């Protein structure tokens, strides 16, 4: 079946609320899923994977375990980027100062691809980002220039020993400053694949024109989660909106 972006967003927000997310969190999480799906990053399959975890525990946020002037480490404690991604990006932005970039490592977290939407969102505030993580036997690198609306997405062979569930993010006023100051952290193996911005844009435009294809079972799953925040209707409650 096909749904519109707006109704998908509305459904996701309520579904995440049904999972116990707080208002800021369910907005952010819905934004991440919708952005990935509408830009060709398999947002729905990643959501299904996340729901397996989110359905079994109360929402958990990351802890700040290490911090200096420009670098920090967050422990995700096994949570999803859907819950801690925005906090991580908000935090790293505060470590950027004139002429200096910032680095952040988020360990022990899942569903890392969702971070892309948070990078895109923060890029609109004139920050540049490079982020990478290990996915199976390859490395995913995402970079975006300040003010850009779409990122560069590339995969490389793995050259560095990366924690399986960690994510590294570098942020600065522009990409050149980041690359200069964090050159030692930004060495990648052989390029495997790129996913171009034109492909992302085409995917997005198709979703606006024709709607978004979603598996009916997943839509039903979302409906079931939404049902958690609904209140049983009674004769007396009907009066709460009418006569």
């Amino acid at each position, binding site marked *: *079946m*096909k*749904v*519109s*972006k*707006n*109704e998908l967003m509305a459904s996701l927000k309520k579904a995440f609320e049904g999972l116990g997310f*707080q*208002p*800021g*969190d369910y*907005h*952010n999480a819905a934004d991440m899923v919708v952005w990935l799906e509408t830009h060709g990053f398999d947002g729905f399959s990643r959501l299904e994977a996340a729901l397996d975890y989110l359905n079994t525990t109360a929402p958990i*946020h*990351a802890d*700040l375990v290490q911090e200096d002037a420009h670098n920090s480490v967050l422990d995700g404690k096994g949570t999803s980027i859907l819950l801690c991604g*925005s*906090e991580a990006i*908000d*935090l790293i*932005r*505060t470590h950027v100062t004139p002429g200096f970039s910032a680095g952040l490592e988020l360990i022990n977290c899942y569903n890392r691809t969702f971070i892309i939407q948070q990078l895109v*969102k923060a890029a609109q*505030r004139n920050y540049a980002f490079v982020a990478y993580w290990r996915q199976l036997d390859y490395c995913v690198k995402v970079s975006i220039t300040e003010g850009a609306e779409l990122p560069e997405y590339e995969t490389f062979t793995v050259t560095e020993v990366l924690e399986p569930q960690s994510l590294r993010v570098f942020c600065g006023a522009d990409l050149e400053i980041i690359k200069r100051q964090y050159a030692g952290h930004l060495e990648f193996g052989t390029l495997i694949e790129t996913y171009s911005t034109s492909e992302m844009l085409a995917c997005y435009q198709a979703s*606006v*024109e*024709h*709607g978004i294809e979603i598996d009916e079972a997943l839509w039903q799953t979302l409906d079931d989660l*939404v*049902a958690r*925040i*609904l*209140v*049983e*209707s*009674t004769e*007396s*409650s*009907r009066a*709460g*909106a*009418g*006569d």
Partner: protein
Amino acid sequence: MRTLVRRMVVENWQISSSVFDLDEQGYGTVVYQIEANYGTFSYVLFSHYLDPENRNDRVIADQWDLTMALCEGTVDTEQLDFLRNNVPKQEAGRVDSRVLVLSRANRSARTFEYVVNELANGHQPNVDVIAEVGYLYRTTAAYGSGKLGMADWEKVRTKHRDFARPFAAEMFTCYMLRHFSMQQADYLAAQRAPNSAVFLHEDIKRYIGIGNSTGLGMAPFLINHPLLINQWIEMRETALATVVAASESGVDEATLARLDVATQRVIQHLGEIVTADERQNNANLLLREELQLLHLWLEEQGAVLASNQYVWSSLTQYAEQHWHIETQEVINTLLIELYPELVDGFEEQMGVEESHQITPEMPVADLIEIIEDKYEWALAIDFSKHESMGVFWYRSQEKMEPRLGQTNIDMGMEKEMSLAVGRLVRECYDQIDSYNQARGQQNVAHFIMQNPAYSGIVARIQTMAQSHYGDIRENLVHADVLPIHLLRCKLSFFGVSKFDPRSRLWVRNTMFQGAPLISDFGKPLVDDWQFPIKPVLASR
């Protein structure tokens, strides 16, 4: 509504029925094809028999007299079949991204049969009877913005310039309903009495609008779209400031005379409103009395006023000091209406993206200052009083209808919707203040790391701090909260009139009453229908 009508008239939109397949009872299918300025659209309408006992204006209804869809392009047989299988079901059906708006309507029990019978008997309906209601049908919902599989607002905004302003497509759907309602009345009269029936007089047609029932469901939208509401009010305030500035060197007597005529028109309009709501009646009465004072002032002082510098500034200041808020706002409206050439351009600036974002670098002390400055109204509320948290908002299992529950009496408090902005600000303020005293010198990102539950309200506060109007400065969970005020605010921007509160939770009103007809498109625009009054028929 008036923005849309101005365009349709000036751009001479061509509207014709490509399908008009009604039986002798008026049930069946109608498709109108619309050639607008930039594109072609189809308005598909299904007319059904409805047992009067099942006629219900609430969201929870599942049957209606009419159901409609506004579609892009033309509609072929296959799509028409698809729409026939889904549009009558409304929320229980699904449509696709070729549909821009989905709507439904119910007949007025008081006027529809009366008008058809009068026409069938060969004479025009009594205008006084029409005036009591104002319409033949009333719409109970006009869904757009991607609901139920429809086109997203982003698609409408970027692809369909004819409807690229907030709610323009929804308003058009109501306008077409009005057109159909009168065409159907003419059609049924002719069916019943082919030899004696007459068509509705064009002046009466112009006076017939569309009814609207709006309930609690609109309130969460208003609360959750503060940037949009801010934009609307800011444009109105900018328009008012522009016309006040235009009176810098005085105004000509013709302009003063137009204001006087418009004032008398509003007085008559208010006198023709029929409502059983005592509060509304009293408000209308007071408004009429104060506008009468304005009329006398204009009559007596007109010549002197014309040469006064900033006469409109003096008038609005006088109104603020001496007259009630409703009178002040009507005067503001009348002044804005005097200068279409100065203000009509603002209608292109009514849209804005609703995005609330955290500014993580902001020092916590600055956020505290912002709350104390911009949300002083929220901090002034004593939430320890029971009545300050006397109600809660929730979504019902029944069609997810938003409802109000009484705290500690009704079920569902634990599933409360996050709409109590004032209380959320208060809680956030208390938390951030104690955090600041304990930690000091920290920024918002660190506060959120420690207190993630507040990220939503912090994003709202930081975003809205850059605007003036979007937040509703009231306790929305007070035991005596009057949600109809929220509904009236949004409906006013649509241009509706004749508010008829049916309870504190829902309100009936009238749309497009007095507006030009489709037959007026392409002719000189008469744009004075914002306060419709009874027509005086030229001939009977």
